[in-house]
């Protein structure tokens, strides 16, 4: 199992990432993906994301290893964008390849729950009345608790 982890300012192309995951091995039968989009329903103009270079990549890699130990996987791709992202922009991609669709779905959801709660990212929201740092949310923590 290979894991590709990228923290980047630029956008990503889901089709290309799926092709990269499935092009390698003949037995890949399933790719589950999750694409997060910056939601604009609440007057939000943009998010600015900050991360801890080095630690973020290491922690994501550790969770990819954990996913690989729990489920039968062929490949994992995690791309997380940082910097300023306007509403509607793609912000995160998790793509998991497996020969079993249940494993692909479970690992993808596990990694998303981790990324949305415990990964070393900090978000600043930009609205008409200014910017503020987002506080950690409890509901997301509960989602991640499921996997303990």
């Amino acid at each position, binding site marked *: 199992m290979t894991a590709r982890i990228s923290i980047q300012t630029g956008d990503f192309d889901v089709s290309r990432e799926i092709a990269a995951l499935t092009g390698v091995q003949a037995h890949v039968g399933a790719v589950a993906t999750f694409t*997060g989009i910056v939601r604009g329903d609440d007057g939000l103009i943009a998010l600015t*994301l*900050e991360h*801890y270079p*080095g*630690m973020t990549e*290491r*922690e994501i890699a550790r969770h990819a290893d954990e996913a690989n130990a729990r489920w039968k996987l062929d490949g994992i791709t995690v791309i*997380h964008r940082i910097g300023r992202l306007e509403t509607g922009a793609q*912000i*995160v991609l998790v793509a998991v390849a497996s020969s079993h669709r249940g494993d692909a779905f479970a690992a993808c959801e596990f990694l998303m729950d981790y*990324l*949305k*709660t*415990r*990964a*070393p*990212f*900090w*978000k*600043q929201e930009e609205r008409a009345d200014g910017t503020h*740092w*987002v*506080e*950690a*949310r409890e509901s*997301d923590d509960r989602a991640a608790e499921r996997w303990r």
Partner: protein
Amino acid sequence: MTLLYFAWLRQKIGKSEEQLELPPHITTLAELVEYLRGQGSGYADTLADTTRIRAAVNQTHVGLDTAIRNTDEVAFFPPVTGG
């Protein structure tokens, strides 16, 4: 010692990174926080409420009772909000 600050801690302290020669009598993160509070009002204000602050030593999340050495990379940041 390399000190890193993220998010609003970075903004309030006014820098993202600094080098510190760790005074020999400081052996834990809690003592380091106390020491930094004495380095000016920016530090004192930012580090006043440790319930709002998390830390990592050498890129691993740790508690404030953790032992530290002069060669460590120490980071202070708010609770992570995820991506």
